[in-house]
């Protein structure tokens, strides 16, 4: 990333991921945060949230990325998950038509539950799998596509178990969701839209950069004592003008004890 500029303070932004299981949510984050890809990712385990900065010309946005970690499976995401989220990445798999329907359901849920200013990006992942098939990107995949639960019934296919290591040969058929169809839906709902590949790295950085550009920072920048409730309370903004907010982890510094 660009060199440190101490004069620009990073603005912390909560970003949530949503989408059917195995569409590649965690893989997109891994690509963005560590520029890495892992063929055999397990269903998300063990990361509370990851952070990554995105530097633009005039601002530095520090994404605090919340991955769903299985609570979405039975639609049991807690309100806490949506709370104060300034951005959401809703992911589907362009080789699975049903995953776009799930994505649409998540967009609805966001519109119901989340802050009305939330910036939503719709991302069709696994673009690498249809390279060539689309004509415009000519190369054939060099690696076997990962085995997906393709033949599971459509409504029960969110199998959270990790796919067997890169086994089943090209069972992941070609594209099932056209660029035009998804784009039309995104435009209609006012969503940012990308097709991307976590595996190849295509467009991943762009998703986050575009979100960073789009977020109306005045709605999330801490305003000291300005009474913007959202800002006064978030733990992340504890230092910014809210004398009563505390960071529990800081208590260590003040362990010395009582008053008397």
């Amino acid at each position, binding site marked *: 990333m660009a060199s440190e500029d101490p004069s620009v303070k990073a603005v912390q932004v909560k970003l949530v991921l949503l989408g059917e299981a195995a569409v590649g949510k965690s893989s997109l984050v891994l690509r963005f945060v560590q520029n890495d890809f892992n063929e055999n990712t397990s269903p998300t385990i063990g990361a509370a949230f990851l*952070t990554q900065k995105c530097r633009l010309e005039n601002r530095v946005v520090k994404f605090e990325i919340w991955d769903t*970690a299985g*609570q979405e499976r039975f639609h049991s995401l807690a*309100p806490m998950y949506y709370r104060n989220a300034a951005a959401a990445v809703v992911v589907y798999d362009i080789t699975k038509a049903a995953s776009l329907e799930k994505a649409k359901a998540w967009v609805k849920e966001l519109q119901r539950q989340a802050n009305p200013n939330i910036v939503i990006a719709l991302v069709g992942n696994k673009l690498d799998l249809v390279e060539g098939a689309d004509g415009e990107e000519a190369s054939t995949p060099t690696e076997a596509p990962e085995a997906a639960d393709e033949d599971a019934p459509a409504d029960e296919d969110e199998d*959270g178990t990790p796919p067997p290591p890169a086994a089943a040969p090209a069972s992941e058929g070609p594209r099932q969701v056209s660029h035009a169809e998804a784009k039309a839906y995104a435009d209609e709902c006012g969503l940012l839209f990308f097709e991307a590949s976590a595996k190849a790295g295509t467009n991943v950085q762009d998703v986050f950069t575009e979100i960073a550009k789009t977020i109306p920072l005045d709605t999330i920048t801490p305003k000291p004592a300005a009474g913007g409730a959202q800002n006064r309370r978030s*733990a992340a903004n504890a230092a910014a003008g809210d004398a009563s907010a505390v960071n529990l982890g800081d208590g260590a510094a003040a362990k010395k004890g009582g*008053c008397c």
Partner: protein
Amino acid sequence: MLDSDSYDTVILGTGLAQSIAAAALAKAGKSVLHLDPNEYYGGAQASLTLDEFATWAAERSEQPTDADDEYTSAQHSRYESASTTPLGSLAPDRRRYALSLFPSLMASRGTLVGTLIASDVSKYVGFRLLDSVSLWDDAKGAAARVPGSKEDVFKDKSVSLPDKRRLMKALLFAAGEFEEDEVLKGHEEEPLLAFLTRSFGLSQRLAEALTYAVAHASSPDEPALPSLIRARRYIRSIGRYGPRAFLVGQYGGAGEVAQGFCRACAVFGGTYILGPDAVPSDITVANDNASVSLKIPGHPRTITATHLVCSPDFLPASLKPESIGTKTTAYTVAVVATRPPVLAPANAAEEGEEEEEGDDTAVLVFPPTDTTPLVRALVMGEGTGSCPQGQWVVYLWAETGDVKSLQPFLGKVAPEGVSWQASYVEHAAQAKPAASEETGASPLVILEPYAGPHLLTEGLDWEAAQGERAFTAVAGDDEHGFFEKAEDEDDEEDGDDE
């Protein structure tokens, strides 16, 4: 449909204790299935939006039927006279409220704060220092702030110098190792109020302040020793995060904290089902006492678990622990659109100082009288995420079955009237304390809901202790301790500057 029919642990209810146990067990590598028949997280500790609260109250005032599941019928016997006023003009913003079924504060040095830090769930939940604790002064018809710390005592202009000295002496005593002190020896069972008046020469008003607003006792008869032990913990909480002892959790507190632990559980692989698909039935302990089985509508086959963790509410009569009584409490929750007087700035602005904008949170205690029990009020403003700007949430509760008797007190906290109000009576079953259970002896781990008189200051720590107890009952001498960091586990997520 679930991936698996069997789990290390199935947990029923997403109350705070259950959620803590769930997160700790998942972190220790157990497979956890966490179920809640409610559509919301938090169970008896939930934070509800206005519309959720209305539904909650309506469901609990319906006629019970024979078809009710265990949990529903337990809710019917637990809650009584639940009602809410119409949403009216608050309807469009109804989802911006977080109203707690468990109005409570977190002592800065207590069980929960330690668990929050050890588990990293503190990253998910915001806390603020409680701004003030006041005692109602009936003679003046107004709330009077109770000085909680040494500095407060010195600043307080309403206390004479000799009284200040006596008060300081009493506070020092309560903060110290009084167990062996001659002053207390032989008087451990004496009511705290009488003990303070007699031993430190405190005026009735100051002794009441210490009893009800520092030790947070609920009656003049509470014995000295346990009250002093509580007071010591509260006094020692001062200074950890600021000049006051207690923290207020954002977005309703307990319910939000429970959500944080549930998220942590999910992050470590726990599975969550909420709502009608998660209503348990046919809970059965296997003959060999080695497992529990149950059914839920959301899964076609019987689910088995090595352990089942739940509150008594979920259990059929044959498995319920013996109840040794109930504690009845009436609650009122109100939304007000005028700043309650108890939040007025502590000191009028002095020369050169900026006008203070007033407090966001307060506790107000109405001492018991001959005709009324002690009544507590907890007031929260928009800074706590409980309500939109320019509004406040008032909780009032007292040990009584007469919910109307709270109304005059509401008038004192919010003299300008209220925009919305919920009222209900809770009969909390006091379970016979579980005999010190042998770890792993029973596949059924029954949590004890809080049924004591100190909900405000002890409720959260009680839940945290219950959560840890459940973890130990399940995991026992497992290689993993309660939220113990694994050897090689680094804070990889946060390698970033701040």
